[in-house]
């Protein structure tokens, strides 16, 4: 435990010393405050603490859709764009040099000459690096949690799901960074590899989504229906080995509680905007939930485990 705390404290000190940590934290706080500035008036929504106003009967203060809309803005723009892309990207850049610096000659010797197994040092260092994104999103989620209380009058602790979800996305990609960093000790190569995996993963998911939609829509009309389904199946198999960064981010839609029930699915939002009952769009929600949480997280973690296992193996066997 003493060793774990020592490496964790060292990681914290490292983060504190990095300018990018504070820049990212400041930007996160700014985005959180922008979210906080969104409010509900008797006639609709307001932004920038009342400087901007939109009249929308459905979203007026106290309406059942206000909470869902507020959380939808949170999950779609704040988490889906800011946290899932910008914050994760900044975190990757910021943390990419942790392992190469640690492995530098004259630095690694001190840690490896101590009575601690290499694997333990490796894992603790990895966990320590994860604190970057955990702290960032933790602070962010706290501001959002307070914002929801202020704007909607409810304590919605489910927004804290953003912390593990974003940490998961970061961890998938960070495993790529760690593997390349341990192998090459090059920060640039590590960042580049992570970006490639991120892009391939994103493109693969989009491709699978399109194939799913085509396969579903042409069931009764097109003769080649079976073929599309087969293509879709193949894309699912291909994607199974890649981390599902996008789908993991979409999990927040299922995990956040709104209107007293879990899930603010896209279908529910669309139907609600169109004036229907809250949560009545089964086919859209079914599309969003075509993969179970276990599949999305499980296969992604398997990817991460393989890469981390390989990185740990190299780290443990390498001469420094």
């Amino acid at each position, binding site marked *: 435990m*003493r*060793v774990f*705390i*020592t*490496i964790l*404290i*060292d990681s914290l*000190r*490292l983060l*504190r*010393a990095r300018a990018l940590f504070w820049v990212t934290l400041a930007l996160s706080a700014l985005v959180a405050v922008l979210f906080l500035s969104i409010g509900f008036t008797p006639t609709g929504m307001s932004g920038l603490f009342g400087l901007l106003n939109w009249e929308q009967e459905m979203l007026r203060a106290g309406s059942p859709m206000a909470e869902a809309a507020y959380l939808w803005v949170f999950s779609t723009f704040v988490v889906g764009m800011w946290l899932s892309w910008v914050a994760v990207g900044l975190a990757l850049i910021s943390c990419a040099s942790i392992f190469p*610096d640690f492995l*530098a*000659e*004259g*630095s*690694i*010797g*001190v*840690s*490896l*000459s*101590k*009575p*601690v*197994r290499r694997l333990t040092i490796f894992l603790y260092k990895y966990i320590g690096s994860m604190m970057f994104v955990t702290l960032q999103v933790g602070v962010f989620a706290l501001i959002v949690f307070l914002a929801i209380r202020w704007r909607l009058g409810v304590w919605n602790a489910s927004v804290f799901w953003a912390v593990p979800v974003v940490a998961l996305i970061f961890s998938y990609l960070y495993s790529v960074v760690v593997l390349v960093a341990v192998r090459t000790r090059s920060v640039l190569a590590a960042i580049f590899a992570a970006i490639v995996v991120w892009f391939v993963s994103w493109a693969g998911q989009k491709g699978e989504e399109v194939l799913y939609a085509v396969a579903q829509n042409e069931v009764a009309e097109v003769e080649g229906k079976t073929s599309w389904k087969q293509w879709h199946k193949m894309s699912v198999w291909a994607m199974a080995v890649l981390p599902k960064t996008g789908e993991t981010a979409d999990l927040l839609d299922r995990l956040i509680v709104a209107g007293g029930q879990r899930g603010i699915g896209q279908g529910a939002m669309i139907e609600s905007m169109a004036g229907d009952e809250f949560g009545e769009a089964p086919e859209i929600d079914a599309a969003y939930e075509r993969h179970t949480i276990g599949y999305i997280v499980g296969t992604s973690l398997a990817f991460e485990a393989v890469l981390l296992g390989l990185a740990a193996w190299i780290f443990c*066997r390498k*001469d*420094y």
Partner: protein
Amino acid sequence: MAEAAIRIEEVRKIYSGGIEALAGVAIEVPRGSVFGLLGPNGAGKSTLVKILLTIIRPTECRGEMLGRPVGCKKVLRKVGYLPEHARFPEYLTGEQVIGYSAGLCGVSNHETRRRTAALIGRVGMAGWEKRRLGTYSKGMRQRIGIAQALVNEPELVFLDEPSDGVDPEGRIEIRRIIEELRGEGKTVFVNSHLLAEVEQVADRVAILAHGRLIEQGLMADLTGVGRSYEVRTEGPVPGGLRDRFKSQGFKVQGDLISVAGENPGPVQPVIDDLRRAGVTIREVREIRRSLEDLFLSAVRNNKGAK
């Protein structure tokens, strides 16, 4: 020989690509001694130390360190290490560097605080412990490096080029610390290319060249080989005495009489004769090989043998 802190044999390291860094090195380091490992650049000194500290995996290694097989992690609890070109994170303060090493060795918080305060004073860094390493000179970083190597109160300390970048005053300080450690019964393993430094503190030395051990032994024995004594007189040695000394096999040149021998016995009659003849003796001194002489001749002989 006293109980060994390190007893290793057949230490080999062949890097990928077939580069042989160590070719069957055997070393014995007695407990409580200061051991100097010497060798030209690329001789394999740091590789040997790193193998003992589990930083490098040996191709082959038989032996023990502090009574446990080499490679045993637990024994490192009793070992301290200052790496060559030590590079501690600049965002840490001196105190935090020491605390990091203590933490990895499992030293409690309370004990770490107590030891850190004592070590900061011992290495002459009082008043600097709360400043970041980025503000330190190279010598100051080296001092903090030594402090972190001692925070777990080790029985065996490895110092890889401890005087690297340290000013003359700092070198004297480091030598004093090494002598204090020996006084406390600790074993100190010094890796250095600064022969004069090692000569002043080491009890035993070993010389590595091209991954092979070419000389090993007590400093006194190694530098004592080919020992002689010199007697200098006030003015040239008088003719009669000069002839007598020459007939006894001594060299006489002007005011200098050279007497070869492992002990000072044969010098005594020379002194008696000079005093009887009323010649003033200016100086009598023992001539030993310096470590530099020993090192150079060993390395040259090794080159010649290859």
